[in-house]
């Protein structure tokens, strides 16, 4: 058994430190009144003790003697009293030694246990750190993928609405181009007829000129020529206006954030959308003056267009769409109301969900209103909808005016 163990058997020498031993010796000298010495278990005097003659009594600590007290006093009672005192002293010393050694052992054991726990914790911390490092990287990669996909989807949605618009716009442009071409054909005929006058005019024959003028009804021709040019000019203006609206709607000549009057946005979007409404619905504007707003006008146009196209689709015939704008509570409020089919109550909570659509496959991406809401939220605003089946639908857009 190691000397360090708390329950290791103590020797007399262990239990009596030199300083205490000197004081004990002086006390015992008085008590016994005669020379004495302390012996170890083998009967050999402790260091610095001188052997004396006399009787010896055992000093018992637990069960067996740890040493002996030898004295020449010859008084058994005195010697027994001294033995009892020394034994008490030894027992207390042993108790203290054992407790202190055990304390050291248990502190060491606790410390080792703590160190083991500590290193286990450090290992698990390192594991978690490594995991969290890769986790962040993996999340970032996922976010990038999602953002990329989202951009593609939004682009697809934009292309889809542009495609829808293009069909209507083509029709609208085709019409004036048709009559302008026909007018130009007629004009070419008129020019040929006028060319017949050239030899007569060059001959300076006034009578023949008047005769031919009369016969060929050149008065009417000139009048008709003038009308036809006038009509072609208005046709070309109409095409120019449509192109201008289209450009303004798609903001091809503008980019990013600008200080825009949203009423202008509403007007251009309504002009473009009215192409689709022609015949079965009319669009009315009730616009109040709005402060200019820093916004991405192209995006706002897209949002308005998505709502307007939905409104137009909801109308069968004799429809009426009213677009209102006003300022209330430091917000620009734009409402778009139709008197169309309305949205069934079971569908209403889902209309802003991505990919939710009631249209047939190929008729829409299911992103129109989702994109619309995202655009408004990106501008710090909100969009609300009220609808009653068979009565119509009202979308209200709120956009905060910066203080």
């Amino acid at each position, binding site marked *: *058994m190691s000397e360090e*163990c*708390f*329950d290791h*058997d103590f020797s007399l020498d262990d239990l009596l430190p030199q300083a205490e031993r000197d004081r004990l010796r002086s006390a015992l000298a008085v008590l016994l009144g005669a020379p004495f010495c302390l012996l170890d*278990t083998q009967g050999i005097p402790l260091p610095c003790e001188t052997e004396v003659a006399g009787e010896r009594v055992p000093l*018992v*600590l*637990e*069960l*067996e003697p740890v040493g002996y007290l030898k004295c020449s006093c010859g008084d058994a009672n005195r010697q027994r009293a001294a033995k009892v005192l020394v034994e008490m002293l030894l*027992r207390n010393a*042993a*108790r203290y030694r*054992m*407790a202190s050694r*055990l*304390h050291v*052992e*248990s*502190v*060491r*054991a*606790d410390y080792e*246990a703590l160190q083991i726990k500590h290193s286990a914790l450090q290992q698990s911390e390192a594991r978690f750190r490594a995991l969290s490092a890769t986790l962040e990287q993996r999340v970032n990669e996922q976010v990038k993928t999602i953002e990329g996909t989202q951009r593609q989807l939004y682009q697809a949605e934009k292309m889809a609405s542009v495609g829808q618009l293009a069909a209507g716009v083509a029709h609208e442009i085709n019409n004036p181009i048709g009559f302008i071409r026909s007018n130009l054909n007629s004009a070419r005929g008129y020019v040929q007829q006028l060319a017949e006058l050239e030899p007569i005019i060059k001959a300076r024959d006034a009578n023949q000129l008047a005769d031919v003028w009369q016969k060929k009804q050149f008065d009417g021709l000139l009048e008709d020529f003038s009308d036809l040019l006038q009509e072609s000019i208005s046709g070309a203006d109409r095409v120019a206006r449509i192109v201008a609206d289209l450009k303004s709607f798609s903001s091809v000549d503008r980019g990013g954030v600008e200080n825009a009057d949203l009423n202008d946005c509403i007007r251009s979007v309504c002009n473009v959308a009215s192409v689709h409404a022609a015949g079965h619905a009319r669009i009315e504007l009730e616009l109040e003056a709005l402060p200019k707003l820093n916004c991405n006008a192209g995006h706002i146009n897209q949002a308005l267009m998505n709502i307007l196209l939905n409104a137009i689709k909801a109308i069968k015939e004799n429809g009426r769409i009213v677009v209102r704008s006003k300022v209330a509570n430091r917000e620009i409020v734009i409402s778009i109301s139709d008197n169309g089919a309305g949205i069934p109550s079971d569908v209403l909570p889902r209309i802003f969900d991505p990919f939710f659509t009631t249209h047939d496959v190929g008729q829409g991406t299911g992103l129109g209103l989702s994109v619309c809401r995202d655009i408004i939220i990106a501008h710090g605003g909100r969009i609300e909808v009220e609808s009653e089946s068979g009565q119509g639908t009202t979308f209200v857009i709120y956009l905060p005016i910066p203080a």
Partner: protein
Amino acid sequence: MAEYDEIAGKLTFKLVYYGPALSGKTTNLMRLHDLVAAELKGELMTLETQNDRTLFFDLLPLGFRAPSGLLVKFKLFTVPGQVAHDGTRKAVLSRADGVVFVADSQRSQSANNGESFQNLMDNLQRVGLDMERLPLVVQFNKRDLPNILSEQEVHERWGGAPWPVTFASAVAGAGVVETFDMLLRAVYRHAENDYALAARHQLSEQDFVAAAIMAPVK
């Protein structure tokens, strides 16, 4: 492994009373001190706090001389039962030659018994003692209290375990000596091969137990 000092002719066994807080480990030692009439019986050394809770350990030394002159010494220790003193428990348990696990029979203490027994198993492993071979007796103490597990319930729960189970009411002294007797027999059987107690020291199991508990060997 008992400690054998050939020069001094002394064989020392370290026996440890283990168990949850307040299960009666110190009381076992106090009653043994009163009841046992061994040839050599030391004073009970206690190291307790003001609330009578064991802080480090209690120690009761017992012993006898074998016919061969060998001094057989038993050092009976208790451990502090409170959970916080695990380092002390582990230190006291190290190099033990036998263990009495003192369980509290009260129904409310079943969880504490279980935790403490698991702690004993863990600490045995830590100090390098083989729980399969170490002499161990399980004592269900406090049989005098109400709301205790019945003996049948205890046997049902511990029947599958390889350790003998005893019942005691240490405050009244009942079962304390029987438990010690049972541990001594297991310790003798475990030590007999290593120290040739019967052949070299003329010490049979019966003599070994009797000398430790009742009277000097003739």
